[in-house]
Each structure stands twice: as structure tokens, then as C-alpha cells.
């Protein structure tokens, strides 16, 4: 009935805030949740629903900084031991008290492996070779092999399950039916109808108080324009990822509001550093030795010739924040002194001449066309800008399922267990999940090292011993000030060297009917208790 009431109001095209009290929040999301088992995936679409039901020891605030969750406090009592004090008086949705034993069960379950799960967060436990031990019902010790500072950040990725509810259950199936989907969170599982809706009801006994809504319904609408239409006609109250072309229109409509914040996702162009690069050729079409991308002046010239403001305004509908940093403002390790390069094609041409490429060369750039916001269009714009300074650039975009495989392991000389990237210059992105640059520096600036996990995302195979030394030390420095200094230095060296060419941080945007207020999150999740009514 409520929907018909709303529809009637829209029909009269006087869409004002409905007069009746509304205690149901309907959220239109781009990607649908596939499982209610919080150890099954790492996909944002799943996690944002699961986070309503299951909680973690450590929470992340809207800027992805750690804050107390099921643990009220934590500290490193020596270089290799962390003590977590758990919250008292918390109960599971079925009334059973929450204790340290549930945490032990959760960690053991993950360590034991979730068979068939392609993206279980178990690897977060392996980092630093963690072991755990229960001291009493509300105290827990986590030990690491050697000093390891990111224990709290890693635990912020691990949802805690109830031993009595989850033990012996079949993964995914029993969770999707609700049988095992029993958490401690602000909302309780009600119904999971795949592809159609997930509904949750408020948990009256939540330790955090009133979550603000009686009921929350997630509805997946993958088509951007259909999701917007659903918001316009009142089928949903709030949507994530409104289409960027429509942002100015929504902003100017009094019936709707937007909430925005820079995301943790950095979009950048990644050059490859091999001596010979297949997709970099001279003007006659011969491969070049050495590969000109190895010269930092060439990389700087490429960066200076990109008009980042134009990309933000004309392609991204304003929803981009040009940068030369690797983590957004507010994150641990953000370097204030690094500002986005200003557009300067003249200086770019001079640098090319200095490097001995006055006549330019040819290059093919690669990128996905369905992964990042407006990815293919950004790549086309950049190719034009580079062609303008004399580097004849061709664009080759492809679906992400092909792109990422080739990016990581598409090289011709690949043999099992060893990754050889394929592309010479590609558009890609990197998200810094837990608000700390330690893993970003290690992941994208450190040299690739299959054994230590260094350079996990370094598919250009950039290698700089100075950065490596700083990064490895940062990963073992528990003192925050000392670590920040190391990260700042590593980032500055890497970015002054143009290890890669940063473009912008995506800006996360939500659109909602007026009368709602939303605290936008850096990590793209839509959480019901961060949406409040202002019209009653």
C-alpha cells in the first residue's frame, strides 16, 4: 500500500516528503549480494549487506580509520603480541552471549579454509603469520611472527560468527536461508531472495542503540538508468552509483539530494618497465630498445600532458578528485605536499625532447571497459592528450574478465606459478581498504616478490631499492609516527619518480530523496544506520 501511496504522489508530480511515518528504508544497489556467508567473498556488494548482520572486532569509520567494534580496545603489549579487550554484554541475535570463544571459532574456521570459496578473507589471517589465544571470555591475544603493525586493520576485514550458530552448517546454503545468518549487528536477517531483494529488521538489543530503521530492504538494479528511474518514482529511497551524466540534474532538483566523498580507489596509468615492450614502438613500427617508458622524463611528460581537470569535469560529471597521492586525504599515509600535476603540454614536449624522443613514438594503451567509472572514456581522452604531444596512442579496451587476467598473467613467457604481465601501459585502479597506506606502498610501489607478497599490484614491475627498503621497514614498524615517516618518504620517492601516473580518486556518490541525510563512506558501502531521516 505504501508504494501505491508514493506512486500516487509522484503521479501528481508534487514529490514532497511523504507525510506518513516511514520506518522502512529501501536501498537500490548496483551489484547484488550473492551470499549471506560473510567468509565467502570479499565483494563490496556482499560485505555491505553482511555488515548489517555480522560485526568485526574492529570497525572502520566513514574515512576507513579503525574504531572500536566488538573489541573496545586493543594495544601491542610487545613487538609481537596484541591484546584485544572484547565488549561486554553483547548478545547474538538469538540471545546467546558473545564471548572470545566465538572469535576463536571464527578465526579457526577461516584458517581451516572455506572449500570452494574463491575470495574468502582468510589471507588476512596469514599476513604476519598470526596466531591467536583466548585469555578469558573477553580478552584475546593475537601473536605475529616479528613486529607487524596492521593487526587491527586486518581484523577489521574479518566478520565474527557465532560458534553455536555456524558450526557444522553448510556454507552459503544455510546462511542464505537464514539458519546460520546470526550475528551481533544492528540488523537481523529476514529474507534473502537472490537477484530480487534482501530484507533485514532492526535488532532491538544492539549494543550501539537504535539503528534508526525498523526494516531495511536492499534491491539490486544493475542498469544505471533504471536505478535512477527507481529513485525518481519512489521505488527506492536511496541509490548508490547514480549515473555521472545525470549528477548535475539530480543536484538541481529540490526533491533529491546527493552525498559524496572521495573514495579509497585510486585510478592511474601504469607503465611497464621491461627492457623491450611489445606495445611501445617507434614511428616506423619497430620495437624500441630500451623501452622509453623506463626514462622518468618520459613518464613525467606523459603525466604533464594529461588534463585532469577536463577529465573530472567533462567525463566524470565532477565526481573525481585529481591527485598525485596514493591514498586519499584523511588516510594514514596521505602526503599533503603531493599535488596533482597541472596540465602543461609545453613542458611535456620539452621533457620528451630532453629524453631524446623529440619525434615521439607509438604506443597502445589497454584498459577495462566495465570496471571503473567511465574507464573506457577516460582512456580515450588520455590517448588523445598523449597523441597531442607526439606520442601516437591507440586504445584497446576490453571487459574486465579478460583485462585483469592479461594484466596479471597475460605475457607470452608465462609459466605456471610465475606471473608475467602483458600490457605496456594500462589504466587500472587500486583501493586501500583499511585506511592505511602501508599496504598501498607495499602493493603498488614495492618490487614484485611472489614470496613476500611485495608488489602484489605492481604489474608494471617498477623496481626501486630505496622504496623497497622503506616499505619493508614500514611493514615492521609498530610505532605510528615512525611508520608514517617511512610511508611518506617511500611515497614521495616513488611519486617523484613517476613510478606510475596517478589520475584521480573516484568520488563515491549516493543520490536520495530529500528528507534523508547520509554520511558518505570512503569504502563505497551503503550502511543503513548512517542514513537518517530529517523530515520528522
Amino acid at each position, binding site marked *: 500500500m505504501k508504494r501505491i501511496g508514493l506512486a500516487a504522489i509522484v503521479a501528481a508530480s508534487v514529490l514532497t516528503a511523504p507525510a506518513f511515518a516511514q520506518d522502512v528504508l529501501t536501498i537500490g544497489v548496483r551489484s547484488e549480494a*550473492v551470499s549471506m556467508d560473510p567468509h565467502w567473498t570479499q565483494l563490496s556488494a556482499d560485505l555491505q549487506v553482511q555488515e548489517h548482520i555480522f560485526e568485526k572486532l574492529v570497525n572502520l569509520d566513514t574515512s576507513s580509520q579503525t574504531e572500536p567494534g566488538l573489541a573496545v580496545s586493543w594495544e601491542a603489549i610487545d613487538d609481537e603480541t596484541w591484546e584485544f579487550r572484547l565488549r561486554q554484554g553483547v548478545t547474538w541475535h538469538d540471545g546467546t552471549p558473545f564471548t572470545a570463544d566465538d572469535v576463536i571459532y571464527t578465526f579457526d574456521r577461516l584458517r581451516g579454509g572455506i572449500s*570452494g570459496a574463491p*575470495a574468502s578473507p582468510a589471507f588476512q589471517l596469514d599476513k604476519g603469520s598470526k596466531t591467536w589465544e583466548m585469555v578469558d571470555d573477553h580478552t584475546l591475544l593475537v601473536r605475529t611472527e616479528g613486529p607487524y603493525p596492521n593487526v587491527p586493520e586486518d581484523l577489521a576485514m574479518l566478520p565474527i560468527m557465532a560458534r553455536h550458530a555456524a558450526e557444522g552448517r553448510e556454507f552459503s546454503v544455510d546462511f542464505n536461508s537464514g539458519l546460520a545468518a546470526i550475528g551481533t549487528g544492528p540488523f537481523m536477517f529476514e529474507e534473502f531472495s537472490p*537477484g530480487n*531483494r534482501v530484507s533485514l529488521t532492526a535488532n532491538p538489543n544492539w549494543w550501539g542503540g537504535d539503528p534508526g530503521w525498523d526494516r531495511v530492504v536492499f534491491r539490486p538494479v544493475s542498469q544505471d538508468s*533504471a536505478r535512477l528511474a527507481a529513485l525518481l518514482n519512489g521505488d527506492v529511497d536511496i541509490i548508490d552509483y547514480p549515473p555521472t551524466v545525470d549528477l548535475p540534474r539530480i543536484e538541481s532538483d529540490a526533491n533529491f539530494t546527493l552525498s559524496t566523498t572521495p573514495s579509497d580507489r585510486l585510478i592511474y596509468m601504469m607503465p611497464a618497465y621491461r627492457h623491450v615492450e611489445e606495445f611501445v614502438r617507434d614511428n616506423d613500427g619497430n620495437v624500441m630498445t630500451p623501452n622509453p617508458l623506463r626514462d622518468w622524463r618520459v613518464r613525467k611528460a606523459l603525466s604533464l600532458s594529461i588534463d585532469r581537470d577536463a577529465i573530472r569535469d567533462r567525463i566524470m560529471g565532477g565526481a573525481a578528485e585529481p591527485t598525485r597521492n596514493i591514498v586519499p586525504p584523511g588516510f594514514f599515509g596521505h602526503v599533503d605536499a603531493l599535488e596533482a600535476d597541472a596540465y602543461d603540454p609545453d613542458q611535456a614536449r620539452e621533457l620528451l625532447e630532453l629524453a631524446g624522443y623529440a619525434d615521439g613514438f607509438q604506443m597502445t594503451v589497454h584498459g577495462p571497459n566495465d570496471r571503473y567509472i567511465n574507464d573506457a572514456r577516460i582512456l580515450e581522452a588520455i590517448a588523445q592528450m598523449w597523441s597531442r604531444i607526439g606520442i601516437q596512442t591507440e586504445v584497446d579496451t576490453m571487459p574486465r574478465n*579478460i583485462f585483469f*587476467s592479461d594484466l596479471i598473467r597475460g605475457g607470452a613467457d608465462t609459466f605456471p606459478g610465475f606471473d608475467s604481465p602483458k600490457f605496456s601501459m594500462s589504466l587500472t585502479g587500486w583501493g586501500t581498504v583499511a585506511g592505511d597506506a602501508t599496504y598501498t606502498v607495499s602493493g603498488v610501489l614495492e618490487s614484485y616478490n611472489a*614470496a613476500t607478497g611485495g608488489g602484489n599490484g605492481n604489474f608494471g614491475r617498477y623496481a626501486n631499492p630505496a622504496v623497497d627498503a622503506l616499505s619493508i621497514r614500514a611493514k615492521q614498524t609498530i610505532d605510528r609516527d615512525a611508520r608514517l615517516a617511512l610511508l611518506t618518504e617511500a611515497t614521495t620517492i616513488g611519486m617523484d619518480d613517476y613510478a606510475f601516473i596517478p589520475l584521480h580518486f573516484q568520488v563515491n556518490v549516493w543520490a536520495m530523496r530529500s528528507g534523508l541525510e547520509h554520511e558518505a563512506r570512503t569504502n563505497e558501502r551503503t550502511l543503513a544506520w548512517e542514513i537518517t531521516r530529517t523530515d520528522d
Partner: protein
Amino acid sequence: MLEFIIRRCLQAVLVLFVMTLLVFFGVNVIGNPVYIFASSECTQACLNAISADLGLDQPIWEQYRRFLVGLVQGDLGRSFTYGIPAMTLIWERFPATLELALAALIIALGVGLPLGVFAGLRPRSLFSKAIMGFSMLSFSVPVFWIGLIMILVFSVNLGWLPAIGRAQPVNLLGLPVTFLTLDGLRHLAMPAFTLSLVMLAIVIRLTRAGMSEVLHADYIKFARANGIRESRVIGVHVMKNIMIPIVTVLGMEFGGVIAFAVVTESIFSWPGVGKMLIDAIAVLDRPLIVAYLVFVVVMFVALNLLVDIVYSLLDPRIRVGGGAR
């Protein structure tokens, strides 16, 4: 008849085998699903462990052998994405697609037959020309565009119909259906109409063509000369003869509509198998892609069989199976 059905089933097994071979090796050429699913922080050791767990570290022939062994036992594997058996997922979503496709079929026949008959009887009238113009448009305008325009008009501007999703299903003989409730019909209207357009156009054109041909046949003239009522001439003698090509084409079309309702389901966020397939392809969920295509092949074979049986009911001169009786 029995012999015919058995032969058909044997053919189906052969088709199925060839198809699995093509699809299985086809989806293995593109990309590596591990890179899509795993977190970017997952190290090489972690990636290798996932590969091994999913059986992707095995040579392709070994993977195919395991797949065939499973297939014979009726197990089509577990979806990488959902972690539950692929066939469970397909059965879970198939009723929504079937409902949508049947609604589209009913619209196509219910609206298309009368319009086609009229256009055939009065080919020169202005209304007939409008009908034919409409059928031409239905063929040529992209479904995607029509869907969006309908959402814009009926949901956003007029506010009559919901733009997305499917209503809460009710249980009918064990099948979750939504067409029994008003809310269900409101959700069903736009996607079903959008999906029906191509079939609708086919029905109109085939009916009209059939009408103009059959109306001049001798047996119709004799029937009229015998003084049989015009409504009976049209309704029984004409219709029965023009239905055969319509059933043939719709039978084939309907399979396609079920199998590839992808676009419509995506636009209207209809929770059916088509949308699931698209999502599965985007993340390279190999078991789900293969299971779905196996399912489609079986469905096409079954539909063709059904069409042949309906033939023999419509025209007793057609005998499927061909054996002497």
C-alpha cells in the same frame, strides 16, 4: 511416436556433448576467474591455493573429464560466485524467467492474433496499415530503448508502474508465481510487454500473410457457399490452417525468449536466469555458464519436441515418427 521421442533424445545427447566441448574450452580460453574473485591483496601463494581449491590448476582435459563425470551423475558443479550447485541456482531463478516469457507469449498471441486477422481481412483499411506499421517498428526498434522509454513514461512521469524488480511471489502448485496478485501484475506488465514485442510482430505478420493466402483457397469458398457462418469459417477453417507456421516459429522463438531474456531482465532488474547469465559471464563463473548452456540445449530440444507434437494435433495428416501404424 515413442520411437521418435527416443531418437530425439539420442540426438540431444550428441548435441549436448558437442556443445559442452565447445563451451567448456571456449570459456577456458578467456581470462582466469581467480583474478576476478580474489582480493588484490591476495599474494601469489594465496592465488595458487584458490586455483588448486577450484581445480583450476589441473590441465584443461582433466577439468573436462571431471566435468563429464559430474554431468553423468547429474552434478553440474558449484558456482564460483554463489558457492551452491549451479543447477540449484538455475531452478531457483527459472520460474521468474518462465513466468515472464509465458506472459510475453500470451500477450503476443492474445494481441497479435486478432490484429493479424483483422489486417488480413481488411488489408486496405487505415487501421490495418497502422497495425502493419506497428509490427514493423516492433522488429526494428531496439528492445533496450523501448524498455527505457517505457520506464520513463509509465514509472517516472506517470507513476503508474514500478520500474524495477518482481513482486513477492505466492505459491502455486509448488511454483513461486506473481501473476495472481495485483502488485505482481503491475511489476510484470512492462517487462512482459517489452519481451513480447518481437513475438508480437511475428504473430501479426504470419497471421496476416496466412489469412490473405487461405481466404482465397477453394475450401474456404466451398465452406462459404455451403452457408457456414463467417465466424466459423474464420475461427475454425482458416485459423486451423494458418496456425501451423505460427506454432513453428513461436516454438523456436519462445526458446530464444527464455534463453536470452537477458536484455529485458537487465533493464527491469527481473530476477531471472538471463540476468544471472550476464553476471556469470562478467565474472567468469565457469561452472554456472556451462550449466546454464547445458540447460538451454536441453530446453530447446524439449521445445522442438513439443512443437512437433502440437503439429500432429493441429493437422492429423502430419505424423511424427513416420512409422506405420
